[in-house]
C-alpha cells in the first residue's frame, strides 16, 4: 500500500469532516428562526439568551459565523454543557472510551458470529439451516434495539438475576481493589493492572448490553456474507478448482471465503454506523456511562451544545472507521492498485 493512497484517503477524510461541519452548521444556525434560544438551555433567562446571541455572533454575516464555527471546532472550543456545566469536549472525551468499548464488543460479536452464520447458510443453501439463519438475521434487523434492551434487562437482570443490568462495573469492587483508570477502557485497564476481580466484573456488565447491541449488525453481516458466499460458490472458479481435484472444503473455506471477506469488510462501515447509533439507546437503558448516555440525557434535557458536540464526534468516528475499512478492503484485493 502506497503512502500516496493513505494521503489521498486522509485528504478525503478531511473533506468529509468539513462536510459534516457545514451540514451541522446549517442545521443549528440556518434552519432555526432564533438559534440563540436553542443554545441557551431549557428555561433561559433574557440575559442567557443575550449571551448566547453574542457567543454565536448572530449579529454578524453568516460567513463570519461559519468561520468562527469552524475555528472553534478545530481549537476545541465546543461550548459548555448546560447539564454538567463542563466543556462539551471534555465531557465527550471522558465518555468516549466507555462507548467504544461497548461498540467494539458488540461489533466483534457481530463479525465473529455473523460471518460464520452467513457462510453456514450459503453452504446449506435452501436447507433448514439456511432458513433459520435468514429468519434470525431478518429478526435482528426488525427489532427496535431499545425495546430489546428493556426486555433483556427485565428478563436477565430483574427476573432471573443472572447478569447485572446497569453500569460498567460494581463500584465496590473498584474501591476494594484499588483500581485506577489509565486509558478509560475498563477491560484494558484491568488487564494492565492484572486486576482479575475488576476484569471479571466489567465483563459481566458488558455481556448484556453488548449482546443486545450486536443483534442488528449481526443480522446485517450474516445476510451480506450469505449473499456474497452464494455468489462466490457459483463463480466458475469455484467449480473449476473442484474439477481440478481440490477438496470442496478447501474451495469453500479457503478460496471462496476470501472472495467474501473483502466485500464484507467493506460493508462493516455501515454496520458500525448502526451499532454506534444503537449505542445511544442501549446506553440509556443500561446506564452505561458513554457518549450515547451523554447524548441521550442531553436530548432529554434540551442541552443543545452537548447534543451537537455528540453528533459531530459520532460522525467523525464513523468517517474514521469508514476510512480504515476502505483501506483494509483495498489492501485485500490484488486487483486494486493502491
Amino acid at each position: 500500500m502506497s503512502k500516496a493512497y493513505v494521503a489521498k484517503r486522509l485528504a478525503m477524510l478531511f473533506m468529509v469532516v468539513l462536510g459534516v461541519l457545514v451540514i451541522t452548521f446549517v442545521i443549528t444556525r440556518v434552519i432555526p428562526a432564533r438559534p440563540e434560544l436553542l443554545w441557551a438551555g431549557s428555561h433561559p433567562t433574557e440575559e442567557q439568551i443575550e449571551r448566547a446571541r453574542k457567543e454565536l455572533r448572530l449579529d454578524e454575516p453568516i460567513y463570519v459565523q461559519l468561520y468562527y464555527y469552524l475555528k472553534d471546532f478545530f481549537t476545541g472550543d465546543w461550548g459548555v454543557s448546560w447539564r454538567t456545566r463542563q466543556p462539551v469536549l471534555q465531557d465527550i472525551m471522558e465518555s468516549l472510551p466507555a462507548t467504544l468499548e461497548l461498540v467494539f464488543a458488540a461489533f466483534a460479536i457481530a463479525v465473529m458470529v455473523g460471518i460464520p452464520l452467513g457462510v453456514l447458510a450459503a453452504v446449506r443453501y435452501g436447507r433448514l439451516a439456511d432458513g433459520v439463519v435468514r429468519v434470525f438475521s431478518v429478526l435482528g434487523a426488525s427489532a427496535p434495539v431499545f425495546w430489546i434492551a428493556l426486555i433483556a434487562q427485565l428478563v436477565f437482570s430483574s427476573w432471573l438475576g443472572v447478569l447485572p443490568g446497569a453500569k460498567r462495573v460494581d463500584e465496590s469492587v473498584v474501591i476494594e481493589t484499588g483500581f485506577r483508570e489509565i486509558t478509560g477502557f475498563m477491560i484494558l485497564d484491568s488487564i494492565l493492572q492484572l486486576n482479575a476481580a475488576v476484569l471479571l466484573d466489567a465483563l459481566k456488565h458488558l455481556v448484556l448490553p453488548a449482546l443486545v447491541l450486536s443483534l442488528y449488525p449481526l443480522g446485517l453481516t450474516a445476510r451480506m456474507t450469505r449473499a456474497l458466499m452464494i455468489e462466490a460458490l457459483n463463480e466458475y472458479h469455484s467449480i473449476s478448482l473442484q474439477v481440478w481435484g481440490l477438496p470442496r472444503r478447501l474451495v469453500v473455506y479457503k478460496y471462496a471465503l476470501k472472495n467474501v471477506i473483502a466485500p464484507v469488510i467493506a460493508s462493516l462501515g455501515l454496520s458500525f454506523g448502526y451499532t454506534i447509533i444503537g449505542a445511544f439507546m442501549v446506553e440509556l437503558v443500561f446506564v452505561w456511562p458513554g457518549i450515547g448516555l451523554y447524548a441521550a440525557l442531553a436530548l432529554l434535557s434540551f442541552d443543545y451544545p452537548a447534543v451537537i458536540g455528540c453528533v459531530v464526534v459520532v460522525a467523525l468516528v464513523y468517517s474514521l472507521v469508514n476510512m480504515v475499512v476502505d483501506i483494509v478492503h483495498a489492501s485485500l484485493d490484488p486487483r486494486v492498485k493502491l
Partner: protein
Amino acid sequence: MASASSQVLWLIRRSKLSLVGLFIVAGFVVTGILAPFIVPYPEDARGETYNIEERFQPPSWEHPFGTDEYGRDVFSRVLMGARYSLIIAVGVVGLALLIGIPVGLVAGYVGGRVGSMLMRVTDMFLAFPPLLLAIALAATLGRGLFNTIIALSISWWPWYARLLYVRVTSVKNMPFVDSARLLGLGRLAIMFRHVLPNSLTPVTVQAALDMGSAILEAAGLSFLGVGVDPSTPEWGLLVTEGWASISSAWWISLFPGLAILVTVLGFNLLADALRESLDPRIRRIALTRRILG
C-alpha cells in the same frame, strides 16, 4: 419492467416467508387506515381518559394487552399506533422520494459539473451514520409528528438520490435512449418519457420496503425524547411510557414493541425475498443451483 409484477408473483408463490410478510404488511396497512373505527376504547386510544381504578391491570379478556398507568387500554393504543406509524412511514418515504428523485435524475442525466456538485452534496449527507442526522434535526426542530417526518426524510433522501443516479447513468446509455435521441426528441422529453420511467422501478420498490425502517427509526427518535408529541400513541413512545414501571407492569412496554417488531419484520421479509428474486446473480442460482455437491 413489465415483468416486475409477474416476478413478484413468482417469488410469492415460491417463498412462504414472503407470503407471511405480505400478510403482515397488508394487516398493518388495513389496521392503520381503520384504527379509529375498530379500537375497543376510542377515548383511551386518543389518550383522553384517566381511569384511576383501572391502572396497571395485567392482560385479561377485557384488556388483552393490559392497561397503563392512566388505566388506558394498551390494546386500543397499540391499534391506534398503527395509524401513526403508517402516516410516518408513508410521509418519510414519500418526502424522501420527492427530494431524492429530482436530485438523482438531474445529477445522473445532466451530469457534468452540476451532476458532480449534486452528488458531492448527497455524499456529504451520507457521511452521517443512519439516524444521527435525524437526531440533530429533530433536536433543532422540536417534537411533533410533522417534525419527525421532516427530520427522518432529510436524513433519508440521499439513499434514493444515489440509487436513482446509478440507475439513470446506466439507463441513459441504453440503445433505446440513443434511438430516441436520433429521432430528434428533446432532452427534457427523453428525460421524462424514457429515462425516468425506466429508472424509477427499483427506487420505488426499495422505498416501499424501506417503510419498515422508517417505523423503526421514528420509534428510536421517540425513545430519545425527540420524536412525536408526548400525547401521541406512537409505538416507540408507548414503549417508553411503560419503561418506568416495567418491572411491575411489563405489558405496557412489551406489546407496542412487539407491534414494531412484527410490522418491520413483515416489510423486511418481503424485502428480503424480493432482493433474492430480483438480484440476477442470486436468482440464477435459485433456478439452477450450480453448486457442486
